[in-house]
């Protein structure tokens, strides 16, 4: 068993979110609202892709499509591994969505989505760096938007 495999295998069942931009590691906990789950968190880990990266292991949890969307918004290069019985059942890179619906609040306070019950909707203009455009007010933002 390789060194790498063993460290992931420490989780019996659950999800590993790897290659998180180091400074966004704790943001992931917040946007997924992870509180009571059994968590293993690593930060300041060496990464060829990112320089420094974060990793989060969540026991007994699978991410929904909506949750993956939120993760991709703060960690566009993340890889997700689904663990069943200490085995990597599925491993994939998150597809960066072309649109984000109901994920983040619009940064324009005068936007209709901040004033009426209209769900937010952004179009992706660029993935790296993340640049999105509000479908409604047409304002363009980078990823410092507040996640809903």
């Amino acid at each position, binding site marked *: 068993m390789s060194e790498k495999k063993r460290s992931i295998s420490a989780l019996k069942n659950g999800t590993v979110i790897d290659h998180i931009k180091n400074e966004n590691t704790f943001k992931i906990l917040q946007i997924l609202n992870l509180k009571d789950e059994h968590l293993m968190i690593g930060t300041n880990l060496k990464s060829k892709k990112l320089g420094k990266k974060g990793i989060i292991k969540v026991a007994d949890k699978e991410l929904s499509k909506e949750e993956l969307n939120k993760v991709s918004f703060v960690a566009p290069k993340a890889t997700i591994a689904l663990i069943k019985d200490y085995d990597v059942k599925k491993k994939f890179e998150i597809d960066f969505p072309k649109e984000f619906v109901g994920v983040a609040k619009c940064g324009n306070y005068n936007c209709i989505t901040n004033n009426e019950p209209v769900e937010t909707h952004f179009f992706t203009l660029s993935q790296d760096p993340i640049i999105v455009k509000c479908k409604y007010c*047409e304002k363009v933002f980078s990823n410092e938007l507040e996640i809903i």
Partner: protein
Amino acid sequence: MNFKGRDVISIGDFSKDEIIHILKTAKEMESNPKLFLVGKLMGTLFFEPSTRTRLSHEAAMEKLGGAVIGFADPAVTSKKKGETLQDTIKMVDQYVDVIVMRHNHDGAARAAAEVSKVPIINAGDGANQHPTQTLLDLYTIQKSQGKFDGLKIVMIGDLKYGRTVHSLAVALSHFKCEQYFVAPKSLKMPKYVITHLKDKNIKFYETEKMGGVLSKADIIYMTRIQEERFPDRAEYEKVKGVYILSKSKLKNVKKNMKILHPLPRVNEITQDVDNTPYAYYFEQAGNGIPTRQAILALILGAKK
């Protein structure tokens, strides 16, 4: 080209060919007006008052034989009673064939169009878009100069907050015009417009001084500089007298040059300009009629 049922929300939703088609239809409306819209009803929902925009749309509709209902004052709207915008639209679209709306929030027209079963014309959504103004500006430029390609268009004043000039600059990028932006440092054309022009390889120039560019212009598009846009008063005092067009500044301009302004003007064009052959801002307002007639006739399917 089939526009039937189309919303008119943002100038960016229209291709170059579609814009040209709307302008061509506007010309037909002006030269050969007919009662294209008898029996059609337009709802004007002005959640934010704007008398001139509302009158222009209503005149356009009535001159085509259509009828108009609506409200002009937000105090009487259901918004006051706490009804959501989308609910208001879902009620009004039961009554009318087309809705013209103005709203104080950015993106309101797009949100309305999502639930409306009749076409929505955006007559201004906050600081965002006012596409019929852009189309009438384009119509005015084409009508007064006979073309777009090769024109030198000079925009002066508040280029930062003026949505009119943003949309115009972007729309003109469909054509081979040269654009000149004259503004104080703090009111320069926003980056997204500049980036767009660069991406489309449009020749443009930015300057703080009005003097050098007036003699080059085919079109001068004036805008108002508002004091409340300035972080400090001293800065406003410095520029307030600088971007004013008076008759004495027009000595060396081209013969065909026309001055436009979205109106209302305050003092940025002095009254003595009105009687020169260059003044064209009142005609520009008049051009709102055939332009809006064209839009109405197209989206209601009376013209193709």
